[in-house]
């Protein structure tokens, strides 16, 4: 499995995305799909960007977005 250092909240989202297929596909296929989704959260450019913005973190009292997320948002605007 490729779960090393996987954020538990992201793992929950991956499992939720697989839920509709749980009673329809075999366990081997589901395990393969789960590995691919986890890889995609790290390697697909759009998905990994969205994961960074979505992942649950401690919130700064000022309400500011974390620095890396501000960079992502600047990227959105210039796109």
């Amino acid at each position, binding site marked *: 499995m490729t779960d090393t250092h996987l954020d538990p909240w992201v793992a929950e989202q991956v499992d939720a995305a697989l839920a509709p297929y749980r009673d*329809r596909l075999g366990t081997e296929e589901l395990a393969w799909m789960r590995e*691919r989704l986890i890889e995609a959260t790290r390697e697909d450019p759009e998905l990994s960007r969205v994961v960074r*913005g979505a992942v649950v973190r401690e919130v700064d009292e000022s309400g500011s977005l974390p620095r890396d997320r501000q960079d992502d948002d600047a990227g959105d605007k210039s796109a």
Partner: protein
Amino acid sequence: VSAKLDVPPGRAKAVDPAVDRLVREHRWLLRTVAIKLLHRIGGRLEIDDLVSLGAGGLLDAARTYDPQRATFPVYAAKKIKWAILDGVRRETHGRTALCRARALAASERFGEASADEPAIPPTQEAYQKRLQTLLGGHAAALAVGLTARPEDPDEQTDPAGDPESMALRRAHIGGLRAAVAALPDRQRSLIEQHYFEDRPFGEIALGLGLSKSRASRIHAQAIDALAKALASE
């Protein structure tokens, strides 16, 4: 080793020295992408088979590279990946490899089209909603790629499949076909031709009078719709 040696049969012609240089300097990418895909596809594939399938992708990348759009390794890796996935689909490497290559291609195509979606508001809630949509789409793309294919009589009597899982699979494929039938015309036609009739994506786009990028966006919309339909069953 020059680019000339990598030209697929029937396409041999004089190679631009700049193209030849790009190919020679980036041959390492072939093995890098092939190793990654070998891990993902598994089955009875050999690394050298994948390297060989990817060679045409590297040459295409060198010929069509536009430095304004991406670095060469990023651009070429994508081309190589597509060449390998298409090659595995085209050639016989066993059912598991075929299904996984189709699933990876479906997810890749969905991911590429999703990158062109409009920007979302910079809030955590918006990112979380988008993440659920994207993961749902990638999961649907993988499931469609793994299971939607032309009727295969052998599969009905697969000795390795136990009756219960075969029944579940048949129910899933029935539900998938019904969800595809309910899609708007162009989405339905594209999904049916590509997955149930196994026709190449570029050929279908041409037949529907669409550019490949427009067809990819319609494919992503169809996958989104299928994800919602399958989740609500």
